[in-house]
């Protein structure tokens, strides 16, 4: 299958290794990955912060860029949440029937990375080896909007050598929340501390998730505290074939 990659603006800029890992995994499974260069952002940051007018052209751009894709892979459940929860609403409010039709046509072809693998491609074992103790953080969007359920867990269970440990109160928000992390930095920090304590209590080597936004936040706290616990997007684990990179 030809899979168009929407890597997400923050992955593009801060976590290129995630995009690389996604590409490696999909190619290993025999698919062709393309990367339309016109892509920028999904519009969530603006929309969620209340900049609704400013978000519209960003949304249009995404739809325009990907509208003819066979499938779109997005290694960010928060971006996919934005699309599923708000794109139709935004298109309806624009009174542009063509735009609305395009959104409706495109939405079913958009998948978060782990749900693409399991739900659309029907694969749980992607041939990965990662012999480490790993804890999975269930990001709010993946749980409450995408209802991913145990899809990421099934992928992790199929990784050779991986020891999966459960974080207590796994579904409690890490405190990132987009611009919340700076607008309400103190509370965000307190929520992070609570989450961090839960993670540290099960002594993983690595914390993983389907969102680098959460992981960036967790890294921020863990690294500041001098912890040796690493944060890795699930794609990096699934791309690993022995060796701890």
């Amino acid at each position, binding site marked *: 299958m030809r899979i168009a990659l929407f890597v997400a603006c923050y992955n593009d*800029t801060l976590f290129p290794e995630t995009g690389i890992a996604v590409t490696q995994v999909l190619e290993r499974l025999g698919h062709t990955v393309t990367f339309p260069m016109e892509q920028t952002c999904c519009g969530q940051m603006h929309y969620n912060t*209340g900049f609704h007018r*400013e978000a519209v052209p960003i949304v249009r751009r995404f739809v325009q860029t990907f509208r003819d894709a066979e499938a779109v892979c997005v290694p960010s459940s928060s971006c996919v949440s934005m699309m599923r929860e708000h794109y139709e609403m935004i298109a309806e409010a624009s009174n542009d029937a063509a735009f609305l039709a395009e959104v409706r046509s495109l939405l079913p072809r958009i998948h978060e990375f782990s749900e693409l693998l399991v739900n659309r491609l029907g694969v749980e074992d992607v041939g990965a080896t990662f012999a480490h103790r790993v804890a999975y953080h269930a990001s709010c969007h993946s749980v409450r909007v995408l209802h991913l359920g145990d899809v990421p867990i099934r992928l992790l269970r199929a990784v050779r050598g991986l020891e999966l440990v459960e974080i207590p109160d796994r579904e409690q928000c890490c405190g990132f929340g987009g611009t919340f992390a700076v607008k309400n930095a103190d509370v965000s920090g307190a*929520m992070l501390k609570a989450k961090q304590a839960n993670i540290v209590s099960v002594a993983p080597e690595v914390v993983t998730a389907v969102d680098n936004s959460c992981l960036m936040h967790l890294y921020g706290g863990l690294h500041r505290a001098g912890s040796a616990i690493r944060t890795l997007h699930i794609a990096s684990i699934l791309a690993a074939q022995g060796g701890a990179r």
Partner: protein
Amino acid sequence: MSIRVGKTAKAPEFPVAAKCALQNEQLRKNVHHATDVIRNKRALRVAEMPDWEHLRQSAHEIKEQTLAHLDRYLIEFERNCTAAGGTVHWARDADEANAIAISLIQQYGGDEVIKVKTMTSDEVQMNPALHAAGITPHETDLADMIVQLGDDEPSHIVVPALHRNRFEIRDIFRKKMHRAELTEQPEELAAAARRYLRDRFLRVKIGVSGANFAIAETGSVCVVESEGNGRMCVTLPEVLITLVGIEKMIPSFQDLEVFLQLLPRSATGERMNPYNSLWTGVHAGDGPRAFHVILLDNGRTKLLQSKMERETLDCIRCGACLNACPVYRETGGHAYGSIYSGPIGAILSPQLNSMQHSRSLPYASSLCGACYEVCPVKINIPEILIHLRGRVVQDDQKTLSGNLSQMNLAMQGAAIAFGSRRRYEAAQRLGRMGQTLFQRGDQLRHLPGMAGGWTRFRDLRALPKQSFRDWWKANSRETGL
């Protein structure tokens, strides 16, 4: 018009108030403990109910239907309540509600009243108004008493003294009830409250209550409670005055079967709360001889116009969203600066205030969605929060200072960058160049302005030299669809 929502007009912004709350270790410990306990109890009781989701859906639809025809139901209620011997009053705002209450109390020659928990009376600030008119209100809910005797403010809509532990309550009671021998055993504290209030229940002639539900079909009013002080206040006095927000209306008696299953499990994690009292007008030979209902607007009608905003009024004040909220868990209720705190407070308070106050509350959320999951009437709180953020931004952009704020400038800049490939890639390059000022090794330190909020608590890896698209280009990969 004087719409008033508690003390929101003077409340500090949430980030400021939260910072203060975060330093209060005892408060946070109390809040952590209490919310953890109720959340777990709720989960147990909800798991017992195979038709929970159906109940939620019905509750949502009943509320939506009621609000969509609110005028009709209010008129029906008024007719039936009046026919049963009650008197219905209408109050446009807080001042009017208080004036009506005071006028009634004076009419009946009272200089003190016993009150059963009603957040609505806190919303309109009834107690200060009563004091100013020479009338003494006696709160009778254990928690409200703890708050009143402790010269404090409520911090939770169901368990207002949740921020106090048993030792603090003991100290308050010892001092104000003059009972130096009291221990912190909860049973003893409860018994002390019982003794303290008994005489008042039997003596005071005028009672003031709120209502959880008002039933249009019968003209009845329902009070949901645990301790029995509600029953005392609505049964023993000669005169009963009930203040109820217009959104508390439900169409029929039968509808109680939905709400009385959802509310106790959501609020306190019980299958049923100890007492519910339902009465219709005046009952000959049983209870008060005079009954007055004050139907309160105080900003509610403004929310009816937009379907999304109207949903805020579905709320049945169970408090489940507070208990589920990871932000509330860290700060407690006072930080919200409103009688309505937590997730529901973050949407109700600013809207009642026409976005004049509580403007920082829609941002007091990480949008995690836990509140929506537990809301028994399925209010899509995260969606309404985003909607209200939109209103705040729109209002801010009408002012010069709003346009020049860091956030607005950053957002405008980002929007421009996201608008074209060339500008986006230029912005990425600019970021990599600009970060060298703050870079130490592979880390960014002490970022300026708003971004400093990040680095105060968290480390941040520097932007990598090669972005993903750089890698893609460098490896000559496919860019068509």
